Each structure stands twice: as structure tokens, then as C-alpha cells.
């Protein structure tokens, strides 16, 4: 069995020599830098279709206030006051894929942006930060632009909890 001992010793030592914690850190570091560099590549930029990235959009105001520009057509509780943010749902709720979409004017750059008011669903009404601005709201006979219907559609539960306000594009004047 001597040859087997030698073989396992050699492979174990070889593995230890070639895979120090430092080399793992170096490899991991390279991977992290690589991943960060990928969005800079022109291919990734092209896939965004020339649409504004959230970080490029000039912003002002408090996302937890009804007066915040993105909330111009909102009718409901701000998810930011309910354990989520203006772009994400609180834990335990599901974002409705079917949604009311409108435009709001950004006071900083004066441009209109397309906003998607996806509701978060699956828990009873949040009850904090109720906002009812409803700009652009139309009567029930225009259901795609009506805010009084429950937009928790296409989700497991139709229980309404709160609303997000997600920028999905730049409007054309």
C-alpha cells in the first residue's frame, strides 16, 4: 500500500500548494472586478435600448412623500413606508406583473418619464403613507387608465398591500 500512500500524499500536497487561501482570494478578486467591468462593455449598453438607467436620472425630493415627482399618478400606500422601497416590494408580498403605467415630469431635468406603478400583493393593506394623486386617472370605462380597480392581477393573491413607482423609460413629447 506504500504506492497508494505516496500517491495520496503527493496529490494532497499538490492541491495545498496550488490552492492557497491567497490564490483563492486573488481569483475571487479578479472575478469580482471582471463582473463589475462587464456592464461597461458596449454589448451590455446596447441591450438597454438607449433607455435611461436609474442611476443617470437626476432626482430630487423624498421618495417617502406623496409630493415626490414619481408618485404623480399613485393611488395607494407607498411601499417605502411598508418595509419595501419605491421600486421593490416588502417581504412576504408579490409584485403584480400587470400594472398601471403613466408618465410623470421630473422637476430637475424637465423631462417626462414613463412610470410603472406595480402593486405589491399578498398581505392586507399596509396602511402607511396613503397617497392619492391620481394625475391622468380616467373613468372606469377606460380600465387601462383607471386607478380605482385592484391592479393585483396575475399574482397568487389579489390582496392589495402597497404600490411602487418604477421608471421604465423616457417618454416622447
Amino acid at each position, binding site marked *: 500500500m506504500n504506492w497508494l500512500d505516496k500517491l495520496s500524499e503527493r496529490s494532497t500536497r499538490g492541491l495545498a500548494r496550488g490552492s492557497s487561501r491567497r490564490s483563492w482570494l486573488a481569483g475571487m478578486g479578479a472575478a469580482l472586478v471582471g463582473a463589475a467591468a462587464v456592464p461597461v462593455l458596449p454589448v451590455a449598453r446596447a441591450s438597454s435600448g438607449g433607455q435611461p438607467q436609474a442611476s443617470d436620472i437626476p432626482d430630487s425630493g423624498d421618495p417617502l412623500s406623496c409630493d415626490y415627482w414619481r408618485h404623480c399618478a399613485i393611488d395607494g400606500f407607498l411601499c417605502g413606508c411598508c418595509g419595501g422601497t419605491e421600486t421593490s416590494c416588502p417581504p412576504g408580498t408579490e409584485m403584480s406583473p400587470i400594472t398601471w403605467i403613466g408618465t410623470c415630469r421630473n422637476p430637475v431635468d424637465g423631462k417626462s418619464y414613463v412610470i*410603472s406603478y406595480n402593486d405589491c400583493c399578498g398581505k392586507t393593506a399596509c396602511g402607511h403613507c396613503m397617497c392619492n394623486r391620481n394625475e391622468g386617472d380616467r373613468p372606469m370605462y377606460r380600465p387601462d387608465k383607471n386607478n380605482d380597480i385592484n391592479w393585483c392581477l396575475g399574482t397568487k393573491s389579489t390582496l392589495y398591500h402597497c404600490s411602487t413607482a418604477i421608471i421604465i423609460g423616457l417618454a416622447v413629447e
Partner: protein
Amino acid sequence: MIFVGLSWRGRRAAAAMLTGVLAVGAAGEPEVPSVNAVRNADKARVDYMLNCQGCHLPEGRGIPGVVPVMKNYVGNFLRVPGGREFLVQVPGSANAALDDAALADLLNWVLVTISPEQLPADWVPYTGTEVAKLRAVPLREVTRRRAALVEQMWR
């Protein structure tokens, strides 16, 4: 390289003219549907967001069984008799708060960007005049008409 020095709009116009020349030169060969069918793609894309995307979702992905899927599908309607009319008369199109020219452009944009491979080779883009005539005729039995068209597609 002949496009060097032209604005984007100019380049598109030049490309459209070139396509026209090629289409004449290669008569009889199927022409690949292209974005040239759309007059204002930027406006059509935003009109899609504001009038369709709330339910049909980005890229017309839809929700099978809940919201009709348009991605890689909606072009099939142009392969069956009555389908061309249906796409204008379906309430989401006919009732949209868009004028006839904008609705024509939006429909053409949806077809060439979301479902280009299903378009028949001899497809002719919608015009505002055609859309005006078609949307004036109400479609009462939407679900039944759609089911009949879908059945024809697979016959």
C-alpha cells in the same frame, strides 16, 4: 460607408431608399420585414409602454391563460383570413387613445419587433387610412373571433 456624415434620421432614410432599390432589384425574393415599416420607432415604443405593456408586459411576453402572449406569436394572425382586421379591431387596439396613424405605427412596431419571424413574407405594413376604416367597425365577440382565428392557424 456611404452613410458616413449623415444624421441618424438621414441614415435611416438612406437605408429605406436602399432597401427600396434592393427590393426592386431582387423582385420575387421574400423581403425580410424590418423596422423600416415603422415611421417613428421611438414614439411607437413609448406608445407600447403606455397603452399595451401594463397588461401584455415588456416584449409582449404576456401571461399564458391570463393575458395573451404576443412575443413570437402575434404575427401568426396575419397568416389567416380575418387576422389583419382582428389586430386593429381587438378592443385594446381599437379603443386606444391614439390617432389612426399612431395606432398603425404602433401595430407595425409590435409586429416587426415582437414577432418578426411569424410575419408572412408578403406582409404589407398597416397605414393610418386602413386602420381608420377597420377600427370604425366594432368587434363584439372578441373571445370567439380570436378562438376561431387561432384554430385556423394550426389547421
